[in-house]
């Protein structure tokens, strides 16, 4: 794995692509090291907020050293990021965590499942997986984002909670509605969705990889802040806890308790 670094990145562009959703391109050498499912941690500027905010890698342009982050304004830190303009500088820590096991998709039939602000990491993942794949996306309402970008890399199915676009419901309802099947699932989204996927995968003997979230402080495995419960004793911690920032954020669904 590439060495982790704290670097100063330059904002190339930022635009709003949904209600409270922002699309940020940064120029940074970290782009070269980034794999799908990994994340960076972005530092707020100004001194009252100190901890960096973990944001998944949405897309990379390795040749131009560019990294794309797509995020929702969820609080003060992300609100501050949303004011960045081209030319501004942001400190970021990266590349962090272990991404999706792209190899496991080889020769398999794959679902990429993204719910809400879990959709962004699916883009870089979709680009990395050569196989034919179905991309299942869940949104709140017709305020879609990234679905056009994703459509370039697979068959996109959309569900909305209010039924305004595509299947009414969530990504699981898409599977039912279209009677879809997969050998491997790779997913990111809210906890209820991940729980449903874990259950569905277990019941159907499907290999599933899910990306988890937890509050982080260090992002590099030092503080033990960001753990999740594991079904077996974790090799590093020697207890039933794994660090999401280091062993994760992507776990095989059966390894973790949700």
């Amino acid at each position, binding site marked *: 794995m590439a060495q982790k670094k704290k670097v100063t990145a330059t904002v190339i562009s930022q635009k709003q692509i949904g209600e409270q959703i922002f699309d940020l391109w940064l120029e940074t050498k970290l782009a070269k090291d980034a794999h799908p499912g990994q994340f960076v941690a972005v530092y707020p500027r100004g001194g009252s907020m100190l*901890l960096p905010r973990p944001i998944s890698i949405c897309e990379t342009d390795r040749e131009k050293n560019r990294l794309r982050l797509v995020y929702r304004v969820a609080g003060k830190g992300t609100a501050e990021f949303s004011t960045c303009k081209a030319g501004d500088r942001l400190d970021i820590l990266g590349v962090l965590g272990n991404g999706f096991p792209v190899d496991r998709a080889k020769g398999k039939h794959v679902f990429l499942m993204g719910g809400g602000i879990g959709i962004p990491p699916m883009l870089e993942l979709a680009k990395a997986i050569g196989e034919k794949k179905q991309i299942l996306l869940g949104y709140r309402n017709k305020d879609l984002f990234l679905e056009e970008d994703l459509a370039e890399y697979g068959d996109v199915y959309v569900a909305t909670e209010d039924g305004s676009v595509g299947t009414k419901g969530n990504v699981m309802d898409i599977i039912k509605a279209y009677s879809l099947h997969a050998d491997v699932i790779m997913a990111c989204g809210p906890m209820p969705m991940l729980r449903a996927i874990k259950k569905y995968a277990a019941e159907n003997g499907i290999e599933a990889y899910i990306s988890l979230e937890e*509050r*982080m*402080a260090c992002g590099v495995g030092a503080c033990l802040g960001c753990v999740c419960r594991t079904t077996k004793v974790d090799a590093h911690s*020697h207890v039933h806890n794994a660090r999401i920032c280091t062993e994760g954020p992507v776990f095989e669904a059966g390894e973790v308790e949700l």
Partner: protein
Amino acid sequence: MNTEVKIAGVTFKNPVMTASGTFGSGMEYSDFVDLNRLGAVVTKGVANVPWEGNPTPRVAEVYGGMLNAIGLQNPGIDVFIERDLAFLKKYDTNVIVNVCGKTVEDYLEVVERLSDTSVSMLEINVSCPNVKEGAIAFGQKVDSLYDITSQIKKKAKQPVIMKLSPNVTDITELAKAAEAAGADALSMINTITGMKIDIHRKKFVLANKTGGMSGPAVKPVAVRMVYQTVQAVKIPIIGMGGIGSAEDAIEFLLAGASAVAVGAMNFVNPYTTVEVVEGIEAYMKQYGIENVTELVGAVS
């Protein structure tokens, strides 16, 4: 220019250490920092057996700092010696092991297991506010602090640092008790107990309700406690609480700390420790200071 300091007979190449629990076992920050540049690596608290720690969320950001309620998750002394100490041995720096326990016996077991290892000092955590049993219970009362300190001193092969809690009326009383019981040094401060509430969900942000506050927000309290304690005891003090720059570190040295440790600010800038080392050197150069020890307690 000489940045060497001596604490309880142990020589440190410079007065800059890591604060327990904020630097893993050193490995986690070795991508960023050459551990050979540090005075010491102080490890995460380790108990006689593995501890699961508290449920999540375990960390929360607060104004100018953070709360943590890790609850002393650790892999237990066996894995620690085998894996973490083995890793640290490769570096030319002192290793200080932070020791925790639920009962005095737990502490003693860890202390004994470490007796034939190469660790330079033991730091006894009697001040973690995030576990129900042990820890802070020993550190807030003069009698129990005296008792645990003297029992540990009887078994310990390495010099013993007692790590004090700031959640007390008069830290000098505790410091004096630890000194009287034979402690070789003190470290302070551990975290200050705090709380954060999510007003939209009407819930505690931390699963543990309360957590220990650290970061720049606590620095003035830490500097004050170091200064007060330096006036009250003769044993050396390792100062910490909000250090994020050489300026901060020098403030602690001037207040009387013999060495300093960098905690939460590692998370904000993973290069902090080495930047503090370099910044102290630059300050010494600027003011023509030969020995870093000249700074210790030099405020007036």
